[in-house]
């Protein structure tokens, strides 16, 4: 599972970087999106991948006194990733607005607002 997960992050990040360096604004936007997906997965992975492990303590187990932390997933990265998704979504939406404004004002989707050889 780790290999697949790591490969997924790697492919997303690599595509993201490539798109980020392209000259068209929409490509840059997609690049930023892919990069932030890769980052979100990465943050989640930093809490270690675990299957069938709840992130919160079971009340019945907690009352028993014996708690084995290895049976639980780390809840902190999940909270972090949620925050990161929300913030990333908002800022990307803002980028989209600027992108459209630039397209409307210059008539081109080049990041510099004009075609390179024009």
């Amino acid at each position, binding site marked *: 599972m780790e290999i697949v997960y790591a490969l997924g992050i790697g492919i997303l990040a690599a595509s993201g970087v490539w798109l980020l360096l392209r000259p068209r*604004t929409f490509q840059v936007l997609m690049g930023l999106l892919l990069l932030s997906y890769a980052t979100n997965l990465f943050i989640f992975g930093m809490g270690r991948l675990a299957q069938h492990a709840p992130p919160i303590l079971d009340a019945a187990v907690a009352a028993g006194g014996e708690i084995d932390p290895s049976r639980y997933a780390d809840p902190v990265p999940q909270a972090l990733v949620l*925050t990161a998704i929300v913030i990333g979504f908002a800022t990307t939406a803002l980028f989209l607005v600027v992108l459209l404004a630039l397209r409307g*004002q210059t008539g081109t989707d080049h990041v510099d607002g004009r075609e390179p050889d024009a």
Partner: protein
Amino acid sequence: MSALLRHLVVLPIVVPLLAGTLMFFLAESRRTARVALALASVFTQLAAGVALLYLTSDAAPYIWPEGVGVYPIGGWPAPFGIVLVVDRLAAVMVTLSGTVALAALVYSVTRWDRPGQPFHSLFQFLTMGLCGAFLTGDLFNLFVFFEVLLAASYGLMLRGGGTERVRLGLHYVAVNLTGSILFLVGVALIYGMAGTLNMADLAGRADALAPPERALFDAGAAILGVAFLIKAGSWPLNFWLPGTYSIAIAPVAAVFAMMTKVGLYAVLRLGTLMEEYETLGAALFYTGLATLATATVGMLGAKHLARLVGYSVLVSTGILFAALGLRIEALTAPVLFYLVVSALTTCMFFMLTGMTDRTRQTNPPVSPDDDAGPAPVYAAYGIKEPSVHAGDQGAGIALPAVMAFLGMAFVCCVLLVTGLPPLPGFLAKFALLATALDAVPAAETPAAVWLLCAAVLVSGVAGIIALSRVGMRLFWSVAARTTPRLRLLEAAPVAALVLLAISLTVFAEPVNRYLDSAARSLHQPDAYVRAVLSLETRRERPEAKEP
């Protein structure tokens, strides 16, 4: 009383948040109410900053004996809850950002805040992000406050519209979004290895890690450092900065002066808390030097005053990073003094730029594209686009005295930027160089110290040349210039900042004594760590998370 005073720490964050939100509910027509609310909020921040300065100093040892105040949000103790921490450096930064914000706000009230768009709300959120970034004691919380201030700055930067502004705004947003992604990657790596995001808890954790984990932790810290350097405008990550800052409207650019300092603050804070990262110094020194060199060349090449001021921001960033990179502990206090002076100077200079730009009204506008046509949004709905220049004619005085005032203010700014006596720019650079030279015999690399001194002096000379050239064109080549109409409220903040600069020279001794104690406590992070972590004594401290 002291229980109430403890809540001062959270005030600079909560007040602008409430004020900014409240403004959304005020009708567009109720401008006076909005302005009053904004002024009250910023003034509260400044007052809270000054109070924090006093409470963390040695003069008031009864609340926070060691000068470190901790405010656990929601009552959860560190390292599990998020804490706000105020120490002397944080108090200085909050006061500084309050001062800059108040000046910029008063300046903006004259006309810049008129048309559409929630200027005042965004402004409040920007100051909230600034204060939050200075006060937080948690790495992820720092990210959140960075995003708050950046999101607000995107909106403010685009204010006024025009093709050029939108084009540079796109670059600005793209660069900062990439920086935020790097920030997140760094934070995630650090959490994954150390199992905590509390800054005080992180201090000293790195040394306890096994070698393979340590390597990843170092990588995380390095990525985080790159993110901070982007925000601070360090070479080679700063090509967006002069353009963005010079195209933003004057009051916005004036507050942006504080934003590069946030990156520097973060480097300083984490670098001193995690002592092992003071070894990053060598890299910091050379990037600082490169920033200084490129910015000096940029200053000499800049044609417009606003762009020149943009490069002067980079000059100060370069000097600050290069000085920090020398790893001489005695240098930290002069670095802080220079930081304070350069933030005030930049703020003043950008506001001045906004006023002198109007002398060029008869000429083509600064960027010809600006008046290219209405923004598509307005055109689509058939609305006449509101213009920031709408209120230009009419009120205001057109006297020769106006030119004299602008000229004097310009001279003050030049003295401050280039570090000539008698203004504190000189004191700051002098203290920096004198301390650096004192440390030469003990320094690991004396050559680096000499290099820094030479670079600082050369950049000063280059600054004088560039600024006097622009100044002559602005004030002495009278043909085709109109004497600008000036409103009292626009001139007042600039005059107030000049007075503040003069009083910084007069009261340099107590100011420096305070900054000195701030620097000393920075280099002895034990008190900080103890203050933050002692809150949890009520519970048994659990072992570090076993991954």
